């Protein structure tokens, strides 16, 4: 992962320290961080689909609902460790993203039945020229991606969750999980390879 600078390391160290000292406010910080990440990832995932959505609900409303749900579900959890809590937080982020994709844009999504947005009805068929090995663009593809992460082996899933969903650096992840940085790099690499295999096969 590229550097996720702006003092995230310090922040993480701070949470770890506070948690060690029995300070519950670390949890609130991690929830806030999870909400930030959700906003960022949802924005990435929904890119190009916001305008469609704006017909039903304001984009911010949708995110707001998702954030409230995330906040509630995380608030219920009694964390045993920062690592465990961040893992759960990543899982919640992922599930919220899957819900967002499915509910608002999936095959049953209301957006698909709306045609007043300049939809080109004269086109006999929409041609999708998206290269198969690129970042997902459609929400169906994003949904498949999140689900593929869900199905990764435990070690790979844990690392992928912290790095991609929580935005931690490899160094931070290693510190959090108490393993070497090399192990993180290997699991990160392995996760990407497995995801490519699964998503690549789906596309063929």
């Amino acid at each position: 992962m590229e550097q996720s600078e702006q003092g995230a390391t310090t922040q993480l160290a701070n949470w770890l320290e506070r948690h060690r000292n029995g300070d519950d406010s670390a949890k609130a910080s991690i929830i806030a961080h999870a909400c930030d990440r959700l906003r960022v990832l949802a924005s990435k995932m929904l890119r190009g689909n916001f305008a469609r959505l704006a017909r039903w609900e304001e984009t911010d409303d949708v995110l707001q609902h998702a954030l409230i749900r995330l906040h509630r579900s995380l608030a219920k959890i009694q964390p045993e460790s920062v690592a465990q809590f961040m893992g759960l937080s990543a899982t919640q982020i992922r599930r919220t993203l899957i819900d967002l994709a499915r509910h608002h844009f999936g095959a049953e999504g209301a957006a698909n039945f709306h045609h007043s947005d300049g939809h080109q009805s004269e086109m006999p068929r929409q041609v999708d020229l998206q290269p198969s090995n690129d970042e997902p663009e459609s929400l169906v593809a994003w949904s498949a991606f999140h689900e593929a992460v869900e199905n990764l082996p435990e070690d790979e899933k844990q690392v992928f969750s912290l790095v991609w969903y929580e935005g931690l650096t490899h160094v931070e992840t290693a510190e959090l999980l108490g393993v070497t940085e090399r192990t993180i790099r290997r699991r990160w690499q392995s996760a990407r390879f497995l995801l490519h295999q699964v998503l690549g096969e789906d596309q063929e």
Partner: protein
Amino acid sequence: MSSTESKIFDLIEQWEASCKDGFAPKPEELCVDCPELIPVLTRRIQALRATEWMDKEIVLETAHAEPQPSLKKVGRYELIEIIGKGAFAEVWKANDPELDRLVAVKLPKANATFHSESFLEEARKVARLLHSGIVSVHDVGRTQNQWFIVSELMESGSLAARIKANRPSHDESVRLVIQIAEALHYAHRQGFIHRDIKPQNILIDENGNPKITDFGIALSETQPVAQRSRTAGTLAYMSPEQGQNQTEKIDARTDIYSLGVVLYELLSGRLPFVTDDAMELFAAVLSQAPRTPRTIDQTIPVEIERLCLKAIAKNPADRFSTAQDFADELRKAISPTNQNGRSRFGFGSVLLFAIATSAFGFWWFNGLTQKRNEVIRNTSNLTDSISGPALGRVVQALDATKSDLADLQKNLTELPAISGEQKTQQEASAELATQMGRKALDSGDQTTAFTEFNRATELNDRLPAAWHGRGVVHFNQGKFAEATADLQKAITLETQKPEYFKNLAFALAKNGQHDDAVKQILIGQSKTTLAERDEYKRYVAQVYDSRAAQRTKNGFHDGALADLEEAIRWDDSFPGAFDSRGAIHFNLKQHEQAVADFTKAIELDPNRHDYFVHRGHALTALGRISEAQAAYEKARQLERANGE
């Protein structure tokens, strides 16, 4: 972790480290001491490359920075100079190195508050507007922290500049407004309302034709137009309903109002309401009747004044219902037959014209091209002047055909279409020129074909076959942008000819607009008979093949392969796609696949010597030398046979 896994991981770490240094070693180079790991390492590296995006930092895209002075590129576009500045964005002249053409790149200013997502969505929709009277959007993209829009570069300036420097004559003004109205009508039919029609948003191309710009983009700026434009300059073009922000009342007639104001300004040299005070102007737009244009300039034709005032009626219901109606009424008003009392065509000229027109028909059948050309030249001058040398030249040209007049008399009865009373002088001449153009095109004479088609469009700009013909010649001459514009014009006039869409598609593909090309072919296909459907599938395949060629040239092999897959999916009997795919496999050293593809291409078309040559190369690479030799031998035989 097994020792093999550990070894693979180390190799990948080495590969990643080298990549960071700017050098990507091949698996073969990394596995010198463990060649058995080459296949697995190759697969892993491929996977890592494909999932590179997962490794990128994810940031929230919010503010857009102004391009730094040092920034010379956005996306692939190289910025050259600023050519326009607005309140929210600036427009750069830029070079597109991939297609080797100049384009305009619009970048938001740092202080502009845009909703980037809806902006992009809007721009994507605008990109679907294909009309010669609308500035085309070529591309929409974003760099790390800013979006940008790439469109056709128009360097000749805006109508605003034209009005300031050299206001067009009444006739030219009306013609400009007709063209703008037709482009607007096209957009309205696609569901777009411009909402900001004003001379600054109408650019004039090098041939003097107007093109509407900033279509729909204004809508994406977070402030509504009415709020951000409370300046006297822009408010003047705003309809009463727009001024009052009655969004539910805004429709095509809103644009008709603004265009009416533009016409008013063109004709009279001033705006309907003149005041420096924005509030006063606002009140006037809402409730005051404008000064009639003829009180400013008496030479403005009465009928044109009436149409202009109708367009700027306060109540939308009192305006034209469509922009096309506005255009049609204007056209009718300036047609020679409608200029009662002030007609430049007297009885004598009408008679002469009848003879000349009939004579055209006769010459057409007898192939007396030169004489016909001469008369066409002269009769077209009639539109400008009845007396003087032009008339003399017509008589002279007719004299030259005296000996043919007897035959002409005989043929006249057989030419109802041409001698019919319904057609105007220009229309008949235009049709004839179009036929001549087609004949020249058939015989491969592009120069004559162009002259004829061009003349036809000048004589009658509503003749789709003429625009289509000119487009085809432009295409043959490699002028793809011009071809695109012509063919788009033909399609706006005739929407049912599949071949127009097909030819437009090929022009678009040559212009690098492959997605649009595919769309056009599919529209064309929807208009074909069932028997022709397969033919159109081949065309789609050809467009993908063409993009694959471009992508291969740029080293984007994966994209090219994807295109060829798509081409084959559309038409699995298209040999060209297999040959192209084989070539990419060959370049990627995937020789087995290359042989398979070349073999398939040969199976589909066994008479192409180059397919055999390609197959020979791939077989050589695999060490299957005797087979390769056989392929080369076959290629030689075919080359000889085809040469003879």
